């Protein structure tokens, strides 16, 4: 279901109280004018799964953190912010996968110029 960025924290809190306590994955998709962040949450005892979609603009990409409700969101958020160049507000972020001296910012965006070194070979 599609929700807004300002409803995200309250919706996740209310879902956790009603039993959805297992976070499966946080990821994002880059459509060319906007990004969509995806949150997969599951209720293990009743065996139901829910997908939350949040639309954000590419030039104004930031999201609030949900680390206080689900501890497993820590590494997922770091990976998403590193791959898509999205700022996560409310926590201290750190890099996980890539080194800073490579000069890579957001490799999974569609406008990323890659493969240039191999084209020159």
């Amino acid at each position, binding site marked *: 279901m599609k929700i807004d960025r300002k409803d995200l924290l309250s919706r996740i809190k209310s879902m956790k109280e009603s039993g959805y306590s297992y976070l499966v994955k946080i990821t994002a998709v880059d459509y060319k004018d906007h990004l969509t962040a995806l949150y997969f949450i599951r209720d293990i005892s009743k065996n139901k799964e829910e997908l939350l979609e949040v639309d954000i603009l590419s030039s104004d990409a930031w999201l609030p953190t949900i680390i206080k409700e689900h501890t497993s969101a820590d590494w997922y958020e770091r990976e998403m912010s590193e791959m898509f160049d999205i700022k996560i507000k409310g926590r*201290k*972020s*750190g*890099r996980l996968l890539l*080194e*800073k001296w*490579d000069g*890579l910012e957001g490799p999974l965006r569609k406008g990323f110029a890659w493969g240039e070194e*191999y084209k020159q*070979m």
Partner: protein
Amino acid sequence: MEGEYTEEEFQIAKKEMDQLVQDSLKGREIKPNVMFAKMSDISRAISVSKGLVKWARVNSLWPMQFGLACCAIELMGFGSARIDAERKGYLLFRGTPRQADVMLVAGWVTKSMVPEVKRLYEQMTEPRYVIAFGECATCGGPWFESYNIIRGIDQVLPVDVYVAGCPPKPENLFEAMIKLQEKISGKIED
């Protein structure tokens, strides 16, 4: 709280760790020993004349395992019970580079891993050889267009034997080591 730290703290922690490793390598001085100098003169005299030392060097190559990825599983298969590596003299897959002769690079090498590969190669004692095992170490493999890998280990180290396959069967590695032995003893030209 666990896991929350700023980017500066991450960089500081990384620099400290690298500094720690480099400091441990720096303060090592080996004072020349008189007996040691005499032994090295003797062994140099023997090896020039193609004698006992060369026979020992050719027939007991000790590999150092540097298995990074999928080819490491076939490397372990090379050392295990079906295709036994110890019967030909390649004993004891060592974890330390100080006691090894051959470095078997198996798996793709990323840009984060290049300083470690160079540091390990410089720690091996001479004479030393390198075998590029698998397609990712030869030419980059299926990840040729990726943004984070090195296309072939021979952009960083001098390689003696290349083994093709994805992954190569352990029998291929057996033949590669035999070819390396022939190359050391001078039967094949470079």
